[in-house]
């Protein structure tokens, strides 16, 4: 490179008036393209709109954006974690939480809110069903205009384990769950869940809600989507002194809840009910004394195949439970041992892993619209994808 420098310097001196654009043209013309070549017209092309692979490859991720400064205009963005390519997006209405992809990857369910005059007027709630290949709406299912409007959380909407029923958490502030039959594409009914929030699935015909006193409300559905049994557990954790975050992760029959102070509460469900397994601490006493604790919006992620739990950690006081993570601590769910610490180049508010055997670790950079992609094995930042939405907060991996 050094040998070339004098010549380049000389070149600049002898062609003082030639700007970069002209130089580029000269180089291109010299690059053996005949001057008579004419590019063909494209305006008659039959293909005018892209379509996507369906089902989505496992390394794609949905970045859900509530768009805090313009909440009437929520969005969900699809990004390929391998290439960093932005693949497309959905416009998803007011106070958006997140999309719910079907397990077969063919459809995307999106609970959406609209007002007849943008930010005023008559409110209409629908579940829009999109084709995953075309990202076009297939149909929409009207539901009661009651969906909870809150900081996004996966418990706000979810499918039963066989994808038959979509459940939507309502807060008006009376609490209930709306049920949509995905087979008939109809609203089935509303299940009252007084004092309890969310709809977290536990099987093909069951879910539970988290109650303010730290108990769970278990609900069983029949094949028409109506509640046939409801039961309330004892408190599953200490909701006063150390409440758990409202964004648990699930592996098969166990939900892993994370407490503000950094305890993991595994809670197993079965036909017989819920069993709280002994909680365990993320941090040692010494680390807790240094202020290490979890934080963020989507604070934990799980990779079921390797049975590993990923937690966003930072140092701060009790009221810092929403502060972004400066590191990811990784645990083996079987041994409950920390097996890895990933240093983060940028602080993250939300993390998720792809569900395949060679997973990617996705993270949303705090106070930005940047998606970071890490290799979870090496802990290496693979790429940062800029300009993904406005205020993205929640990741959904298909």
């Amino acid at each position, binding site marked *: 490179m050094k040998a070339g420098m004098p010549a380049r310097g000389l070149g600049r001196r002898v062609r003082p008036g030639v700007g970069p654009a002209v130089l580029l043209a000269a180089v291109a013309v010299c690059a053996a393209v005949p001057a008579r070549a004419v590019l063909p017209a494209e305006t008659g092309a039959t293909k005018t709109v892209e379509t996507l692979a369906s089902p989505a490859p496992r390394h794609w991720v949905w970045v859900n954006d509530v768009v*805090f*400064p*313009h*909440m*009437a205009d929520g969005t969900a963005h699809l990004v390929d974690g391998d290439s960093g390519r932005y693949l497309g997006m959905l416009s998803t209405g*007011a*106070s958006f939480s997140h999309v719910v992809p079907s397990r077969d990857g063919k459809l995307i369910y999106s609970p959406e809110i609209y*007002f*007849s*005059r*943008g*930010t*005023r*007027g*008559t*409110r209409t709630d629908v579940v829009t069903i999109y084709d995953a290949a075309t990202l076009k709406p297939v149909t929409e299912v009207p539901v009661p*205009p*009651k969906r*909870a*409007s*809150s*900081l996004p*959380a996966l*418990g706000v909407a979810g499918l039963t384990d066989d994808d038959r029923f979509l459940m939507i958490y309502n*807060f*008006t*502030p*009376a*609490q209930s769950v709306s049920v949509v039959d995905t087979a008939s594409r109809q609203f089935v009914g509303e299940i009252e869940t*007084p*004092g*309890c*929030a*969310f709809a977290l699935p536990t099987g093909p015909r069951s879910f539970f*809600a*988290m*109650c*303010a*006193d*730290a108990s769970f409300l278990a609900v069983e559905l029949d094949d028409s989507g109506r509640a046939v049994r409801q039961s309330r557990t004892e408190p599953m954790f200490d*909701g*006063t002194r150390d*409440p*758990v*975050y*409202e964004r648990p992760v699930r592996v098969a029959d166990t939900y892993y809840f994370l407490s503000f102070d950094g305890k993991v509460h595994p809670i197993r469900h079965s036909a017989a009910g819920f069993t709280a397994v002994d909680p365990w601490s993320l941090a040692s006493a010494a680390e807790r004394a240094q202020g290490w604790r979890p934080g963020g919006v989507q604070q934990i992620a799980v990779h079921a195949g390797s049975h590993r739990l990923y937690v966003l950690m930072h140092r701060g006081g009790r*009221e*810092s*439970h*929403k502060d972004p993570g400066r590191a990811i601590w990784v645990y083996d769910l079987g041994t409950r041992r920390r097996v890895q610490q990933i240093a983060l180049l940028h602080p993250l508010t939300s993390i998720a892993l792809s569900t395949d055997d060679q997973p990617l670790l996705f993270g949303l950079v705090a106070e930005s619209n940047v998606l970071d992609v890490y290799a979870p094995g090496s802990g290496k930042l693979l790429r940062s994808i800029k300009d993904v939405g406005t205020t993205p907060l929640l990741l959904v991996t298909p």
Partner: protein
Amino acid sequence: MKWLDRITEQSTRAIARRSSRRSVLSGIGTLLVGAAALPLLPVARGAEGPGHAQPAGGRAADPGDPAACDYWRHCAIDGFLCSCCGGTQSTCPPGTEMSAITWIGTCHNPGDGKDYVISYNDCCGKTGCGRCFCNRNEGDTPLYQPGRSNDYNWCSGSSHANIPYHCSTARIVGAAE
């Protein structure tokens, strides 16, 4: 035009509706008291009844800048500060409506050394103000414990303010016990 009628209708009917809304709230309140030992008014309320409040006193008794995130009343706030949006710490900007229900926090007033219960009534009906975003989380609870959760859009309750979020106030409910 229907929506205009609807808003007017709802405003005039709001008083009539309050009794039933109150029973919904006390249902939640009971749970909250059990869960988090909240004061008797677990979900603080906005505009209602004849005014009995005076201005919040001078600077010494109520020190700090209501347009700053570190103002003492903001200890559990999450949103755009109405003081930057055409309102004040206790009033909504023109053209918005104050939510009748809300979340609360307990904040320490360095002006008189006392703790106060603060009601963070949201102002509703226009798009987000976009100014002076402030998120502080002293005593903030998860979404399944609503009364002290700053993560709900409190404009979205079934009241006449069932409409988008614009900004948040920080109104004094009273001294904490």
